């Protein structure tokens, strides 16, 4: 595939991510913060998000496995995940977190377990999509091109 085709593919792919609600305008904000001084800013922040989310998902699984669930603790973790997903523009993850917090407040175990499953799913989807997008960007850069905005 030639450079122009790669660039076109990237633009289309990125557009679809916004269109399908995986990303929102906050992700655009991140991209706008990237500059020559910090050419890897977006990848760095998103990588931090991946690490942090995985940690939180593990904590959530453990917390919800307890005999006596500490809903305040569960809520604290979901609050963190909601915050970071919002900050990077991972809209679908953020939306599940909102529902998740409501179930925590109601101390609804089933609801929480359902949301945990959903948030894992949404997280894994957005992770795959972002990784694909970064790979495309890398291909373009390796071919000597620049990333279209």
């Amino acid at each position, binding site marked *: 595939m030639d450079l122009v085709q790669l660039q076109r593919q990237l633009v289309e792919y990125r557009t679809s991510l916004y269109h399908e609600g995986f990303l929102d305008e906050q992700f655009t904000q*991140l991209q706008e*913060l990237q500059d020559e001084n*910090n050419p890897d800013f977006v990848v760095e*922040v998103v990588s931090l998000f991946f690490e942090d989310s995985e940690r939180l998902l593990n904590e959530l699984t453990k917390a919800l496995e307890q005999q006596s669930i500490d809903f305040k603790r569960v809520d*604290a973790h979901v*609050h*963190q995940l909601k915050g970071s997903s919002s900050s*990077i523009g991972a809209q679908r993850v953020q939306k599940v977190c909102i529902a998740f917090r409501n179930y925590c407040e109601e101390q609804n175990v089933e609801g929480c377990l359902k949301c945990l499953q959903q948030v894992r799913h949404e997280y894994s989807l957005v992770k795959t999509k972002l990784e694909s997008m970064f790979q495309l960007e890398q291909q373009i850069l390796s071919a000597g091109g620049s990333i279209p905005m």
Partner: protein
Amino acid sequence: MFVYVKWWDSTLVLFFIRLLLNMGGGGGDSSEDTAVELGDEPHVLAVDDNLIDRKLVEKLLKNSSCKVTTAENALRALDYLGLGNETLEGAVSKVNLIITDYCMPGMTGYELLKKIKESSVLKEVPVVIMSSENIPTRISQCLEEGAKMFMLKPLKQSDVKQLKWHLMKCRN
């Protein structure tokens, strides 16, 4: 008193000079002994327990020509500011602005704000509170306690620009 400034524009510069003069003054006239030098960049302390948010706010501030120190909770922030020690007589604040998240484990941003306002050295340093939740009572509580601004997360570049503008307006 020597002040060397080459940043933003003169109105904001005057604002910070006045802030620092107020901090050095208090009851007596000790400001004569306080040699203050503002470099090219204001120094901001950003406090947030969320790693991603810390990275984001740091970048936003750096893009606005600020020197940034981050702290992951209120206690670390207080330690950095020197409020962990007994006396700060005659000391000058290390920072020109403090921006803190509201919801943090242990001490909240609101409680941090109160501690800062209780300090004779730090009370004139503008404090901005951030939160992902738009709760009017929370907002008015912070503003009443002396926060200069309340900002909704996630932060954007336009928010930081507005912050600068607001600080300029507030100097009067």
